[in-house]
């Protein structure tokens, strides 16, 4: 199996706080990794470092053998946990705008996802509800045929009844054979069936890592149950 992402002794310090303190990890092609931990455990920091949006204090990141930079960014799609789309644009304009930055943007996929998510193309981004704007962000991220997809809290701001739609969208439009995906979340139950590996992050360090099904067998419970146990 080809590795898409490799982390070696990854560390990040903000002032006197170590947000990440020595992470070693390998993510292979076809893998969906659940990055799990409470607020402030380092999930977003880890995704930012991988996406090249921040520099590590120490350690190494390789994406398809490349250090984070313009080359790796062209193959990495990140769903950020902040709003990053101009509010005055319509959904249609936002799609055109974002797609102009990325060669791997797939317009057909974007159209399918917009329809699946019931987003109105001519709405202004600033007029979308919180949940709709979260959906749009997901559409813009998933529409790229990127090798590495990073989703930071894709279910944040999505009401429980709509979460299945998001999970369905991820399942149908993710190119399993050619990419790897990391999903950071604390809403474990709604999405845990998609994970094949899970990593529990605690104060910037790996508290537990393994195959989701093997952990279910070992702990005799769901990943959500294990989450509660690890972070109790």
């Amino acid at each position, binding site marked *: 199996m080809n590795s898409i992402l490799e982390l070696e002794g990854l560390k990040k310090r903000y002032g006197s706080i170590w947000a990440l303190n020595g992470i070693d990890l390998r993510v292979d092609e076809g*893998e969906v990794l659940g990055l799990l931990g409470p607020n402030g455990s380092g999930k977003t920091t880890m995704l930012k470092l991988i996406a090249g949006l921040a520099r590590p204090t120490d350690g190494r990141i390789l994406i398809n053998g490349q250090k984070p930079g313009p080359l790796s960014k062209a193959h990495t799609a990140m769903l950020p946990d902040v709003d990053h789309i101009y509010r005055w644009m319509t959904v249609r304009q936002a799609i055109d705008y974002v797609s102009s930055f990325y060669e791997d943007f797939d317009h057909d996929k974007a159209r399918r996802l917009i329809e699946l998510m019931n987003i109105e193309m001519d709405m202004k981004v600033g007029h979308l509800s919180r949940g709709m704007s979260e959906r749009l962000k997901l559409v813009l991220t998933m529409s790229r045929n990127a090798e590495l997809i990073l989703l930071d809290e894709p279910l944040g701001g999505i009401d429980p009844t709509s979460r*299945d739609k998001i999970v369905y969208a991820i399942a149908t439009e993710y190119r*399993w054979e050619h990419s790897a995906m990391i999903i950071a979340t604390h809403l474990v139950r709604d999405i845990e069936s998609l994970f*094949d590996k899970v990593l529990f992050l605690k104060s910037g360090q790996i508290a537990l890592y393994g195959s*989701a*099904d*093997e952990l279910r*067998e070992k702990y005799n419970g769901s990943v959500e149950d294990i989450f509660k146990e690890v972070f109790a």
Partner: protein
Amino acid sequence: MTARSVFDESTPIYIQIMDMIKQRICAGQLSRGEKLPSVRDMAIELRVNPNTVQRAYQELEREEMVFTQRGMGTFVSKDKDKIDAVRKELASRLAQQFVDGMFSLGFAKEQIKHYVETYLENGHTTGPDGKERR
């Protein structure tokens, strides 16, 4: 679109997928020699990771319930005896679950038989007091 995951996430999902496929085969919803959905289609239908489906298919192949043909896909076994054996295995598992449940409610062997018989006769059971229980 169905509700979210059909699985009980507290036990390994690949085992539940195996059980589901075995049930479909034994119930005749999947016939002998029939092609199973591709790993990807099954993964999308069930909202699970394809690696999980792959694992379930591999384990079913080890148990000789399915076989793979290179480049063609995965197929239900053509071996009638094998399928009958698994059907019996599923039946005794169901019987065990039922009987265990009845014992834990404090019923004795004869009473359990009575419940099964009346249920088979009437489609509902009658308690010892003669009142119908649904």
